[in-house]
């Protein structure tokens, strides 16, 4: 009883927090489940509502009502705009959407700060609510109780619409079978737009009402997005009630958990998410394997894999080139003309990289060094995303292991570069081997979420384990790395840069050799037709684990270089933002292109730190513009530039060829047809009875 008494306030807080998350996450879940939009700018919609509400709040009921109306309307319009923005991407999979919505979130965040300032806005609730009431002997803010009531009403209204109205039936039908919805005369596109607008309105309303709980500030969007992603993942996409339970659970972890077990609280959330996902993908394993070529499967994850496969194009025309030397494929390949053409971008890049120190000032050289380190991280993401088919947001974890290993080695006096590199790679590989089994069973967006959890958990460890990582302060002041045995520690930027360049070239060359050997085809086969590979006797799981370990080692090398070039290390260097940038660099590069990933990473670092140097404070805005522009201008990423140049991209490409440029044949309502088209006419549609879950 005493325990209950002590924790009553946080427990009630948890309910309020959970309800807030439910309203936000329900929109995210709807958008994903029904409209197939992975909306990484959902947190921004909340922030729009929160800022508007805070700005219009003046301590009166009228201010609250006006704020509610304006905030909801603004976010609703933003949601509808999002629907229009994502419409041209309908055939391009979730990674393109992630790139777009993440870019929009960055732009939106920057604009909100321009408009409302960088400080947290105070919220003035009506005076009646701005007091405390007595709750079982505790003082409790009246507004929160009031909020609980309003959130319950909002949730009930949403549930009623979804489950009791014709409109709600159309939404659920669209999630189930958009083609058949169209066949009953309803436009799936209109339903999608409606869903995204409604999701925006929900987020906006939650923002206005929740502003006194999660206030509007620079970190709001990311915080809200993360928490609602966790809720959606925990709740699954099937039922509102599961989402509700997950939201309240997350709310309690964030409030009650912190008050009961403060030391565990940072881990609880993402550990729970990882556990649920891993168990779920394990449980579903035999059926998942039975899906066969997942490209035409009905679930979004399988669709993503299919589309991912479609994102890969350059190798198609590569294989169409006349075969050169057939024999000694991998080491002693005599470069023919085609091979030179193929290697040309790489060689040009190498030349530019070698010449850089002569061209740039010290700061820029050091930036270029960081870009190379991040480039290695991006290459490791390419190996997983583009080759193994495991889109990852968690490569910052082995990256962090490598980075902290190097920093600690240096601190302990082990300053020889090669030793640092090898030991960091080893540590990262061991880490990847340990977490690998949790990753390789899952596919598609589930992998994104599991790896996100791994990355966040690693981040939490970094923050907690102060003796090794220095906690939030980070590590600084360790001895500089020696390039060669016995040499002096490197201090000059150009020295450091050359060291980083040599290591990066070796690492990238090794990666390319392996990926272009038949081993790369084993991975391509696994991603392209996993069922066929299994049925042909390939131990697919083992391949993926090996790929995961190698990618981990590569990320570890990147981390080591990052420390060497920066001479300090903070948790932000291995945080979610870096993970997202690495993945987006890969998408910008064209998903399966190693050189594309390197260029993508370079582009991101240059935009964020170099271009933004002349317009301080607007790095995120510029990055956002870069992401959004890439999505529309380069549908195949940087690698598509070369494919287009050779004129080989067009004829007879795969059906899932991601040529979905804006306004392409994907007219309203037919945007979902390719899935059915991929099925030969003889394929019986799954009998709905088969979908019935126990």
């Amino acid at each position, binding site marked *: 009883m005493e325990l209950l008494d002590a924790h009553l306030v946080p427990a009630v807080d948890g309910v309020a927090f959970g309800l807030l998350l439910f309203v936000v996450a329900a929109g995210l879940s709807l958008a994903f489940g029904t409209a197939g939009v992975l909306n990484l700018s959902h947190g921004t919609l909340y922030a729009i509502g929160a800022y508007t509400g805070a700005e219009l709040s003046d301590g009166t009921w009228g201010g609250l009502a006006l704020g509610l109306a304006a905030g909801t309307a603004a976010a609703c319009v933003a949601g509808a705009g999002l629907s229009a923005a994502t419409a041209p991407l309908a055939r391009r999979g979730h990674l393109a959407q992630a790139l777009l919505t993440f870019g929009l979130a960055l732009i939106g965040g920057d604009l909100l700060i321009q408009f409302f300032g960088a400080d947290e806005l105070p919220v003035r609730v009506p005076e009646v609510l701005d007091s405390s009431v007595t709750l079982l002997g505790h003082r409790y803010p009246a507004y929160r109780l009031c909020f609980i009531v309003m959130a319950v009403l909002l949730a009930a209204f949403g549930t009623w619409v979804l489950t009791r109205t014709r409109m709600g039936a159309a939404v659920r039908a669209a999630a189930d079978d958009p083609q058949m919805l*169209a*066949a*009953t005369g309803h436009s799936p596109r209109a339903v999608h737009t409606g869903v995204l607008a409604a999701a925006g309105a929900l987020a906006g309303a939650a923002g206005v009402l929740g502003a006194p709980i999660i206030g509007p500030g620079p970190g709001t969007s990311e915080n809200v997005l993360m928490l609602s992603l966790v809720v959606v993942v925990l709740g699954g996409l099937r039922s509102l009630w599961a989402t509700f339970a997950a939201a309240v659970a997350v709310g309690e972890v964030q409030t009650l958990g912190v008050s009961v077990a403060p030391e565990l609280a940072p881990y609880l959330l993402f550990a729970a998410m990882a556990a649920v996902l891993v168990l779920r993908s394990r449980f579903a394993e035999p059926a998942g394997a039975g899906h066969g070529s997942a490209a035409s499967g009905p679930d979004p994850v399988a669709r993503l894999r299919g589309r991912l496969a479609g994102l890969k194009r350059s190798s198609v025309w590569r294989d169409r080139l006349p075969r050169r030397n057939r024999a000694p494929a991998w080491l002693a390949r005599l470069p023919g003309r085609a091979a030179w053409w193929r290697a040309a971008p790489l060689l040009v890049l190498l030349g530019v990289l070698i010449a850089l120190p002569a061209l740039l000032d010290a700061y820029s050289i050091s930036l270029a060094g960081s870009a190379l380190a991040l480039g290695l991280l991006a290459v490791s993401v390419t190996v997983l995303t583009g080759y193994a088919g495991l889109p990852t947001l968690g490569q910052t974890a082995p990256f962090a292991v490598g980075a902290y290993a190097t920093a600690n080695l240096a601190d302990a006096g082990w300053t020889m570069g090669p030793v640092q590199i090898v030991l960091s790679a080893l540590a990262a590989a061991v880490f990847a081997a340990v977490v690998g089994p949790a990753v390789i069973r899952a596919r598609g967006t589930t992998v994104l979420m599991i790896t996100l959890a791994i990355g966040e958990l690693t981040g939490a460890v970094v923050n907690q384990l102060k003796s090794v990582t220095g906690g939030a302060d980070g590590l600084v002041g360790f001895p500089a790395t020696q390039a060669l045995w016995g040499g002096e520690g490197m201090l000059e930027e150009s020295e450091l840069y050359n060291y980083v360049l040599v290591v990066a070239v070796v690492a990238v060359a090794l990666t390319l050799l392996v990926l272009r050997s038949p081993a790369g085809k084993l991975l391509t086969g696994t991603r392209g037709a996993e069922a066929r590979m299994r049925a042909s006797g390939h131990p697919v799981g083992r391949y993926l684990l090996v790929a995961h370990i190698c990618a981990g080692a590569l990320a570890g090398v990147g981390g080591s270089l990052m420390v060497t070039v920066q001479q300090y290390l903070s948790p932000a260097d291995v945080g979610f933002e870096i993970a997202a940038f690495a993945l987006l660099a890969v998408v910008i590069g064209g998903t399966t292109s190693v050189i594309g990933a390197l260029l993508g990473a370079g582009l991101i670092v240059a935009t964020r730190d170099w271009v933004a140097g002349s317009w301080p404070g607007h790095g995120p805005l510029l990055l956002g513009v870069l992401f959004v522009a890439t999505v529309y201008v380069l549908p195949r990423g940087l690698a598509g530039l070369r494919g287009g140049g050779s004129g080989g991209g067009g004829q007879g490409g795969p059906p899932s060829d991601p040529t979905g440029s804006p306004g392409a044949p994907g007219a309203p309502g037919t945007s979902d047809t390719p899935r059915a088209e991929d099925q030969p006419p003889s394929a019986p549609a799954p009998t709905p*009875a088969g979908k019935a879950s126990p």
Partner: protein
Amino acid sequence: MLELTGLTAGYHGGTVLHGLDLSVPAGTVHAVVGHNGAGKTTLVHTVAGLMRPSAGTVRLDGRDVTGQPAHRTARAGIGLVPQGRRVFAGLTVDEHLRLSYRPPRRGDTTRPSVWTPARVLELLPRLGERRGNRGADLSGGEQQMLALARALLGSPRVLLLDEPTEGLAPVLVRQIDALVTTLAAEGIAVLLVSPSPAQAVACARTLTVLTSGRMTLRLAGDDARADATELHAALELTATGA
């Protein structure tokens, strides 16, 4: 009246359906028979607007609806009963009926007959007993009835039936045959697609045999009923081939 001229469609850049000409006058049943993979479902999907033809036209009472998205062809009066039923697993029968009910626009007197949920339930009384059940919980036969009800509630001029008896017990097959005939009697043009000739022979005024996406035989239903040898020869040939 549904009219297809030179209809050509396919996937993966490959053509599945080659220049098919076909017409279904109002109030009649036109059956398309062919083996799996002959292009039957491609035909149905193309007419319904779920696929875009690469050539040819689809006309509905003289109006060109070629390549229109599915919801527009549906509103124009083409009802689809898809292969595999594809009822909405999570929606109750009642919700199916409410969602699909689309009365014709005021003044639109060209519809052969107007269907309301009440009238559909009169025709398919079994659905009335299962109004609260979700699509996934229905039996195969009930799902087929529901798919038919869903198509009828748009008061269609043309009804596309894609293997409506697939996986159903013989008793239900005969029931579906009878329904098809009843609906044609209402003035609806029915395009029936089926792998087995039995149903086609039973109900159709005209039969088309489709082989590898091309028409290989067309004959009147009465002739087929009198003597099915020709029909069977056309189908046999396609199976063992060469």
